């Protein structure tokens, strides 16, 4: 069948491919993504709130460490912790119930029993208990989200077979971001991937000499807020001007003509003492902004390395 042999589309296809693209298209496309990101944005506010509720538990713990004079005093007597505190995977399990796969690796801070005092054991146990509770609460909460969803799925005409074709992943993982004689920086993340993907991130930074939570002020000095803000704004400006796929609320390349629905509410202006961070392998703080907080969702968690001067 050579019916199209007498029609040669080459020239026509070239004309199609060379069609003039308006210079405004790129901005219009981003504007549309912004609008839909906005909808997701509002939904995820709830998740952020849940995350901060969980963060409150962590804060309680920090208070208990800070007020535990026994802990602080004992640890400050110890010059080197490299061999005393170790992070290992405490509880690790995988299980599959129907179509829900759960993978959990929970970090555990172990204290060397021969050279460390009893109070250090107690404190490590406290940290471990907080992490354990954070993970357990998350798993329980997500399980009830899945149950609710399954119920409404079946009530609205879905069959159990269709439900079982879905795969749901639930996981908790951690990474040791930095560890030396004195500091420990631990990153814990948990996610659920089913009808939507949500992830909660937690960062634990400790100074084991003082026995306190490590702050940006400890690392960058008294002017830490200005140092961090200046570096972050520079990095954002550089990214939006050099990478056409990069977007941040309120920051746009020169000549941007689209609108920005979150410029007023979500433009990055300053870090606070609640801003999350961890230490990278070089010991520099990496400041982290949750997904949706300063940029559209597709940009994910935004991380900025702040170099110590």
């Amino acid at each position, binding site marked *: 069948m050579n*019916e*199209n042999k*007498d*029609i040669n*589309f080459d*020239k*026509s*296809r*070239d*004309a*199609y*491919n060379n*069609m*003039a*693209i*308006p210079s*405004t*298209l*790129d901005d*219009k*496309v981003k*504007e*549309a*993504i912004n*609008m*839909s*990101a906005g*909808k*997701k944005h509002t939904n995820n506010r709830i998740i952020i709130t849940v995350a901060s509720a969980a963060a409150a538990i962590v804060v309680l713990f920090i208070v208990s460490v800070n007020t535990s004079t026994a802990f602080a005093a004992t640890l400050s007597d110890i010059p080197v912790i490299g061999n005393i505190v170790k992070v290992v995977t405490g509880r690790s399990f995988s299980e599959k119930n129907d179509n829900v796969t759960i993978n959990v690796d929970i970090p555990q801070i172990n204290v060397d029993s021969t050279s460390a005092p009893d109070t250090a054991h107690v404190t490590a146990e406290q940290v471990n208990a907080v992490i354990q509770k954070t993970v357990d609460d998350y798993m329980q909460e997500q399980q009830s989200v899945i149950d609710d969803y399954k119920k409404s799925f079946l009530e609205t005409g879905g069959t159990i077979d269709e439900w079982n074709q879905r795969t749901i992943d639930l996981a908790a993982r951690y990474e040791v971001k930095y560890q030396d004689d004195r500091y420990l920086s631990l990153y814990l993340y948990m996610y659920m*991937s089913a*009808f*939507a*993907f949500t992830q909660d991130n937690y960062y634990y930074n400790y100074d084991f000499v003082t026995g306190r939570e490590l702050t940006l002020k400890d690392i960058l000095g008294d002017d830490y807020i200005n140092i961090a803000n200046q570096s972050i704004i520079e990095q954002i400006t550089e990214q939006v001007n050099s990478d*056409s*796929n990069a977007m941040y609320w309120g920051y746009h390349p020169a000549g941007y003509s689209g609108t920005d629905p979150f410029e007023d509410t979500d433009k990055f202006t300053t870090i606070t003492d609640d801003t999350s961070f961890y230490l990278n392998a070089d010991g520099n703080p990496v400041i982290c902004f949750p997904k949706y907080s300063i940029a*559209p*969702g*597709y940009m*994910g968690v935004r991380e900025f390395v702040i170099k110590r001067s």
Partner: protein
Amino acid sequence: MNKYDKCVQYILNNQNHFYRIAYCYVKNEHDAQDVVQNTIIKALENINSLRSIGAIRTWFYRILVNESVNFINRNMKEIPYEQQSIFDTEYTTGFYQPDDELMQLVLSLPNDMRTIIILHVYEQLTLKECAAIARIPQSTAKTRYYAALRQLRTGMEDCNERK
């Protein structure tokens, strides 16, 4: 990267394709950009209807083609008695007209046939993919493709005679 984020990446990387396809229906740059915007919003809101990321192009093009066709249908209803004159002269005046005669003919095909030519010939999708996008059996896609070729051939002959 989750499905939503992958979809955004796909959109950012393929926006020119979307524009060209939409243009072939609405035939002016403002409306084509509106159609692309509406398609993106609709796609991202309904991201859960995308079963696997491997099918993203077929899925996205289906929404795009529907949006484009709906757009022309809506505008035809608003001006029902003047369709012909509007599409022949006034409506296209001042807008980009393809230099290529064959492409002009493609743009004046009935929607069903136009879809097949744009996707199969210009965007170089397989007839199977075209059938999936138009939600028609593959045999129907093939029939429409040959019907479109016949109409284009007649059109080209008319053009040559006029010269």
